[in-house]
């Protein structure tokens, strides 16, 4: 037990040294400027992968590897998330016990609005994600909330994403210091190293997209949430954004936080905002 942990930690540091080496940056003034951040973020990826079409970044690993893209396109003819999509459509129109449906909770009846989530609720002063809004809608109508990592939530968000397919991500940051703080907190979480592997989200998805970490081809961070929720062959099932965050944490050997805790809501806010303009491609299929 002891040797294994030390060797693991040692090898993590070797990997860390290699990754950290490429990331020396000058620290600029600390005024939060989401517009500039988004521009810099997008340009970083457009320059690092000049021959990837901008809208292709939302296809994650498939924008990085031709052979895998071909396998994906073959599967997209009759995708494995077909059942979750149909289940979501059915659930979306099945009335709650009090006769209301999800359509009553959402603008435009919940159709074609996914690209505006997550949004910042100035009354509550916090980020509201689509998954949280769906559960709040259930509770407001006397129904038990769904688990954030299980199939029911994935089916609902799959259907809502499907109705927004192709629409550019359109996240707004109101002129409210708490919204800027939430954006900054999401950015901090994205770049903070955690777990015994000592990786941050950026260690994999900014420094080495297209590379392999063990068997997985890493997706670029730009547009990484545009395809949510995703059917992963790895899980042979659907995965919500919450499930993806939780599993990513445990894979770096960090104990995950509760789904929909502030850090997760803020990092989803940050990642969605910097992907503004890129099309929604959910629900997606992934390795």
């Amino acid at each position, binding site marked *: 037990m002891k040797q294994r942990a030390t060797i693991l930690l040692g090898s993590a540091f070797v990997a860390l040294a290699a990754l950290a080496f490429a990331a020396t940056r000058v620290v600029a003034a600390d005024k939060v400027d989401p517009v500039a951040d988004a521009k810099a973020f997008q340009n970083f990826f457009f320059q690092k992968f000049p021959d990837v079409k901008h809208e292709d970044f939302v296809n994650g690993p498939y924008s990085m590897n031709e052979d895998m893209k071909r396998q994906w396109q073959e*599967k997209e*003819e*009759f995708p*494995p998330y*077909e*059942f979750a999509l*149909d289940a979501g459509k059915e659930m979306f129109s099945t009335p709650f016990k009090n006769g209301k449906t999800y359509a009553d909770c959402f603008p435009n009846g919940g159709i074609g609005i996914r690209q505006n989530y997550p949004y910042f609720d100035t009354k509550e002063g916090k980020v509201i994600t689509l998954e949280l809004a769906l559960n709040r809608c259930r509770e407001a109508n006397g129904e038990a909330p769904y688990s954030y990592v299980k199939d029911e939530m994935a089916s609902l968000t799959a259907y809502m994403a499907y109705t927004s397919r192709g629409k550019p991500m359109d996240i707004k940051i109101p002129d409210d210091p708490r919204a800027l703080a939430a954006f900054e907190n999401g950015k901090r979480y994205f770049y903070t190293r955690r777990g015994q592997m000592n990786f941050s989200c950026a260690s994999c998805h900014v420094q080495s997209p297209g590379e392999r970490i063990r068997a997985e081809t890493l997706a670029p961070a730009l547009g990484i949430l545009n395809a949510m929720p995703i059917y992963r062959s790895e899980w*042979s099932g659907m995965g919500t954004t919450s499930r993806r965050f939780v599993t990513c944490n445990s894979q770096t050997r960090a104990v995950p936080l509760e789904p929909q805790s502030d850090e997760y809501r803020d990092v989803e806010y940050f990642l969605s905002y910097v992907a503004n303009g890129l099309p929604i491609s959910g629900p997606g299929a992934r390795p």
Partner: protein
Amino acid sequence: MASSIRVRATSNGDITEVQALIQHPMDTGLVKDSKGELIPAHFIQELKFECNGKDVFVANWGTAVSKDPYVKFSFKGAKKGDELKISWTDNKGGSDTTTAKIA
């Protein structure tokens, strides 16, 4: 309950292309669940496609076919509007059947 079989049959000229996706766990019987017990084998053994009273495609499947199995094939001799009957049986005696119009 909606059918477990999703099928898309499109004809161009004399050839009808058929794609089917079936909701089924296709358990191999070699996988353990979270409590460490073996999940018993549960997989579709035979999948049959009939059109105009004739078998046009019969699949015999083992445990190596993926979960929510998919298959694509084409056949001649049918036209738009003909009815395709699809049915499957699994190793536990489960089964399902559905029909689809060729588009």
